């Protein structure tokens, strides 16, 4: 199995001096679903933003699909690595759902016909085919979340990254999202505090704290380790306790 994400000794400091990542080493294999957990401020979101070159490392390297996250490779990497952000209002910025879902394919230089096809397929995948002409502002939070997912699926990525996918969702919308994610045949990296969701979708979990990888292993073993979870400000999920 080949590693499609290789992170070596990754360090990152924010401009004001906060050290967010301190020597991260991580390998992710094609087709894997990996959960990224840790307390607030552990560096989860910062790490995710390195995977398609939105943030540039202070030290160390990130290699995605054989390409280093350098300026010359960013167009290629961003076609293959899709990020769904926590707040869908930050992801949906176009006047209509259709335009939002078409945004990525248009930037990739696809033809009109191809863009239409990709938009229609992506909306179908999240079961929102009828929403193309709707204004994102008038959708419910759950609907926005699904459309945000469609905006990256239309780019036909190889790696799907989700930052806190279930935050603010009601139980029904959350369940629907979990079922959708289970069916996506992609490499998935899911960050968040919804440990039950991670337990259901990801066989592997990486625990991050203070900018370092603390544990990387089998999801059940890690999440059921009460001592470990407590020491990093986390809780053993109810289904494992």
């Amino acid at each position: 199995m080949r590693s499609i994400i290789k992170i070596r000794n990754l360090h990152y400091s924010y401009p004001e001096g906060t050290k967010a990542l301190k020597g991260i080493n991580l390998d992710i294999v094609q087709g894997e679903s990996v959960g990224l957990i840790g307390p607030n401020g552990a560096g989860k979101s910062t790490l995710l933003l390195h995977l398609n070159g939105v943030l540039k490392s202070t030290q160390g390297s990130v290699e995605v699909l054989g390409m280093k996250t350098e300026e010359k490779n960013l167009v290629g990497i961003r076609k293959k690595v899709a990020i769904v952000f926590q707040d869908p209002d930050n992801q949906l910025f176009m006047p209509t759902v259709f335009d939002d879902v078409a945004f990525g394919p248009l930037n990739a230089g696809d033809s009109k016909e191809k863009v239409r096809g990709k938009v229609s397929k992506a909306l179908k995948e999240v079961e929102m085919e009828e929403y193309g002409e709707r204004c994102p502002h008038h959708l419910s939070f759950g609907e926005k979340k699904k459309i945000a997912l469609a905006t990256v699926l239309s780019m036909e990525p190889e790696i799907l990254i989700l930052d806190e996918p279930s935050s603010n969702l009601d139980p029904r919308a959350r369940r629907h999202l979990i079922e959708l994610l289970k069916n996506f045949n992609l490499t998935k990296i899911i960050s968040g505090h919804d440990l039950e969701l991670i337990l259901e979708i990801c066989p592997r979990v990486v625990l991050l704290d203070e900018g370092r990888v603390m544990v990387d292993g089998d999801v059940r073993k890690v999440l059921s380790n009460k001592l470990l979870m407590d020491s990093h400000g986390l809780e053993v999920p109810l289904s494992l306790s």
Partner: protein
Amino acid sequence: MHLPEIDKFANLKSPLHSFDPRLKIISFSILIFSIVLLQDIKGAFIGLILAVVLVFLSKIPFSFIFIHLRWVLLFIAVLFLIISLTVPGSLLLKLSFLSVSREGVKLSFLISLRAIGAVLFIFPMIGTTKFNVTLTALQKIGVPNKLIQLFMFTYRYIFLFLDEGKRIFIAANSRGWTKKTNISSLNVMGNLVGMLLVRSFERTEYLRDAMVSRGYDGRLRILDEFKLSSKDFIKTSLIIIIAILLHLFGWIQ
């Protein structure tokens, strides 16, 4: 928060709805320029009637137009008052130390008619097309891309900005703060508005990340589906002829 969107009635069917957005923007812009440059009250009055007729043809309800027009009317009312009282000329009315001149009232009428007419023309121009299509049309007719992005983000985020503002004020009210006309209240209000700006700035950073992640390189690309027909050219010609006739009418007088 639900504000009345300008393109709320863009899905109706009328000769203006079926008008190609590019030619519609060009021809109505000419018409708007024509009415604001009129120097004759009768011409401006005909222009206003024409604007009402076009609004009627567009099938956009007048009640909806009034919601948007009320602030313009308020502004015009203030302008009307100031001009009537400040432009020198033959005395029409004297109220204590205030004097109203005939020339002032005439100029106020002319400016009011032109302003209301011009604003009314915007509704059949913008209100009969979905906002995203209008943006695409603007892009096609050569409006700078940065300006279009500015329009787009303003339209998309104004609702969110207002929602956020509302939430901040509710949070302040729930902790016992009430709006008053004193320094302390103004101080708090300044802080709340400042916080709103900080949050908006933060949002722009997240937004940038989301856009860059999807291949954004500074240029906005929107899919267009425009097709010109002979009807579009007839409508454009008619509107431009009317724009010229408005001025000819003044010259003949």
